[in-house]
């Protein structure tokens, strides 16, 4: 049902945990549908994502997409990171089962929420 890459990220997720010095945090999903993703980003003065971590409650796809996006955007500028789509995350994982494309493929949304939160914080 899942690709080898999904299972790899599910089994050995990259960048799991809380980022203590995060300056942007995004959370998407809800308990009703059974997926909650929380992304922590540490953005430098050059607007580059220096560090990123995630916490996820959810199925294999939810965990793998969270892990994958941290790999994709680490070291990217915010402008570039914002361009990353849920579809792209799924493609990097060699695809997701059709039923998972909507419900558990929210990592890019979580990242956008974290970036928005960073911008709010830095304006204040």
């Amino acid at each position, binding site marked *: 049902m899942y690709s080898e890459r999904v299972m790899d990220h599910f089994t050995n997720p990259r960048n799991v945990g809380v980022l203590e010095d995060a300056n942007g945090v995004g959370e998407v999903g809800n*308990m009703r549908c*059974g997926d*909650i993703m929380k992304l922590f980003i540490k953005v430098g003065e050059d607007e580059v994502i220096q560090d990123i971590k995630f916490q996820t*409650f*959810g*199925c*294999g796809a939810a965990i793998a997409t969270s892990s994958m996006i941290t790999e994709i955007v680490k070291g990217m500028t915010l402008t570039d990171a914002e361009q990353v789509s849920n579809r792209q995350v799924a493609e990097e994982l060699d695809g997701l089962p059709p039923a998972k494309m909507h419900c558990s493929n929210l990592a890019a949304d979580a990242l956008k929420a974290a970036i928005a939160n960073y911008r709010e914080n830095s304006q204040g």
Partner: protein
Amino acid sequence: MRNIYLDHAATTPMRQEAYEAMIPYLTETFGNPSSIHAFGRTVRKDLEDARERVANALNVHPREIYFTGGGTEADNMAVLGIAAKLQDKGKHIITSAIEHHAVLHTCEALARQGYSLTVLPVDKFGMVSPSELEKAIRSDTILVSIMQANNEVGTIQPIKELAAIAHEKGVLFHTDAVQTVGNIPLDIKGLGVDFLSASAHKLYGPKGVGLLYIRRGTKLASIAYGGAQEGSMRPGTENVAGIIGFARALELAITEQPETSQHLISLRDKLIKGLTALPDVSLNGHPQQRLPGNVNVSVERVEGESLILSLDMAGIAVSSGSACTSGSLEPSHVLMAMGLSHQRAHGSLRFTLGKSTTQEDIDYVLEVMPGIIERLRQMSPVQAKED
């Protein structure tokens, strides 16, 4: 690598005796039981012999046994058959919130066609209340359909009492016994039901065959057309090999039931005890009125599919009521009807043990579970409530 199958409520491996009984009918004994010639007559005789053996095992009359294409088909035949037969008497049907979709979705389809449907609630253990049933019965009620034991949480309903209430008011009673035949003592006459569905592959028989018991004197409208087989109730050439395998598996399941149940109950209770001793793991379903092989727990702060995947990698096959495994966005209707929170429903895990399950299997599950739960909880943004 371990290979431990703990999903017997989904399906069971076919037993050798059933397989061997089937072989001739898949090869040389191939006649159509409806044919007049010797090829057909031989098979007809064996088919009717199988019906008789099934009836003997269930202590009912052979003419009360109708072979079907499985449990779901039997449920459809009973619910739709009664609805069509008795529509002039009334159009009200009563079922429960925790039925298998084979009954629930069939009743809902009737509701869309103008029938009136009452879905009885259950308590936190998944029990239907007899007094709720009594209150729900109306003058236009034509059928009550309540399963004998639930496939997800294993709760066993007081069918005898529920059927008696329906009969007191002149209403027919159907029970889906797919999970119970061969797992708990079964006395169809004693239960007093009018219709009962069973399936072969849940009791170590082949897939694609089941039966509907129709009490003598009750009539159903048929829901399919095109042949006189099974009293025209299930037209189409019989699944002869399947029926022969079913009969063998059923006879053995009923004979072995006391021994099997004892074996399963001891392993079940050991697993329940071990799992619920883990932090924030709770039992779903009834603590006593429970199928011998069913263990259903909720693991707080962890989602069910990720538990299944982790257990699968450890060589343990189980299932869950999480949305991700139900094929819809909502978690199991059974767990929600029992009042579980979304979190606990998404974090549910079902272990269903079988004849071949051993103490070592249970020990191994209990050995790997803490690490699996811990790993997923460390990833989870949902934190334990501080005391």
